């Protein structure tokens, strides 16, 4: 096993792939030299919602599993579980899909019918509509509520930035990325973010079901 894989695996097992939004003390304590590194201000997601910060302010497009291009804000009006991935990912992404399926099964009707689940790939070159359709079919995911999509590089970079998902494209075509599931309300405001895999779905469920 090469060292990089080992490191990735170790990070996975210890849950360290979850690295999106830092708790408010994090940035300040992390910089090696607090004097030279200014401390970025931090707003928790709850405050964002109160301030009307909507992910749909992004002017970006996604391309779904049918190859249909649409603005992200087509999802406005529904609560959305959103995450980012790439189909070539051997370990994390199947687990991520399983996590989303698990949450979806736990949501009662009528909330479940209104819920949308969106997986956006940052690997637009390889994650063609065929690849995405095949992925969905393998899991028998309901296409009326689930969407697998890809986004062009700059759009993916912007979406990842607002969701707090970090990724790096490697020279071999793989991606090294953090994993997060984000729950958006009907206006596109971040209600809950869950970093990493196999996390307790309770916070998402309690935000979804009044």
């Amino acid at each position, binding site marked *: 096993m*090469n*060292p*990089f894989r080992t*490191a990735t695996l170790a*990070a996975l097992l*210890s*849950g*360290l*792939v*979850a*690295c999106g*939004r*830092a*708790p*408010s*003390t*994090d*940035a300040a*304590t*992390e*910089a*090696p*030299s607090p*004097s*030279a*590194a*200014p*401390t*970025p*201000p*931090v*707003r928790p997601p709850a405050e*964002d919602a109160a*301030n*009307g*910060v*909507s*992910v749909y*302010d*992004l002017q970006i497009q996604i391309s779904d599993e049918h190859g249909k291009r649409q603005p992200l804000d087509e999802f406005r009006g529904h609560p959305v579980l959103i995450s980012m991935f790439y189909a070539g990912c051997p370990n994390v992404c199947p687990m991520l899909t399983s996590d989303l399926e698990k949450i979806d099964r736990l949501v009662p009707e009528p909330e479940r019918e209104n819920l949308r689940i969106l997986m956006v790939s940052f690997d637009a070159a390889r994650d063609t509509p065929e690849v995405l359709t095949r992925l969905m079919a393998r899991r028998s995911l309901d296409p009326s509520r689930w969407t697998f999509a890809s986004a062009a590089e700059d759009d993916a*970079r*912007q979406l*990842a*930035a*607002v969701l*707090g998902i*970090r*990724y*790096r494209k*490697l*020279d*071999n075509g*793989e991606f*090294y990325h*953090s994993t997060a599931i984000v729950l958006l309300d009907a206006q596109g405001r971040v209600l809950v973010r869950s970093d990493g895999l196999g996390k307790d779905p309770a916070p998402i469920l309690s935000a979804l079901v009044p």
Partner: protein
Amino acid sequence: MIPWRIALLGVLLAAPALGERAPRGMARVGPGVYEPLYPASPTERTVKVPAFYMDVTPVTNQAFLAFVHERPEWRRDRVKPLFADFGYLAHWEDAERLGASVRPAAPVTNVSWFSAKAYCKARGAELPTERQWELAAAASDSSARGADDPAWTERVLAWYAEPTSARPLADVGGSKPNFWGIRDLHGLVWEWVYDFGASLVTMDSREKGVVDQTRFCGGAGADAQNPSDYAAFMRIAFRSSLEARYTTSRLGFRCVKEIERKP
């Protein structure tokens, strides 16, 4: 003899640019090889970076003000909170004036990643990638590989060690041009890069709210190719702590342009 020498010098200077002139205010950087502090994979211990044009100096308050006039959606009183936090352009007197206490030729700071990106895009340019920025910043004034010169490394480190408050921001262009003709990469402000969130340190250091400094340095530092490159380590740590809407009083940016390849 002298005219001949000057002619030869001219040829030598022009040769790397293949007869092209850099856009105004920019200089050609690269092609070059960049050694990332944390290789993303075993095959990426050295990374080839194609040549690009880069702003010689960071974007100034004056230039950013002109942009804000042109694109009022980036005024601090109109910007969407998704794109910039409450500190955005907070040092200016108001939404459309710098005010007497802000030096027009000082680098603009208190700008978010989104606003910096929009500025570059409006100029037909973009933010440098981390690789581009690091390639440019690895050069001393006499060599593309400044790391080979201990005196240069020491000067760079001295800035990183200096307390922020001790030093009001100077105007851009104060430093000597480096090997590529680029100024102020060290010693003035931190700078946004396009892929600021991609550094691997995050993966190792973010599990808990309170960071274990020992594990941070011991764990992450152990994998570094050149652990003595403390300045690069600090840049990565700083970038990892950022989010796209953050603004700080010491964080600015500059733009790059791709070099058009004629068929």
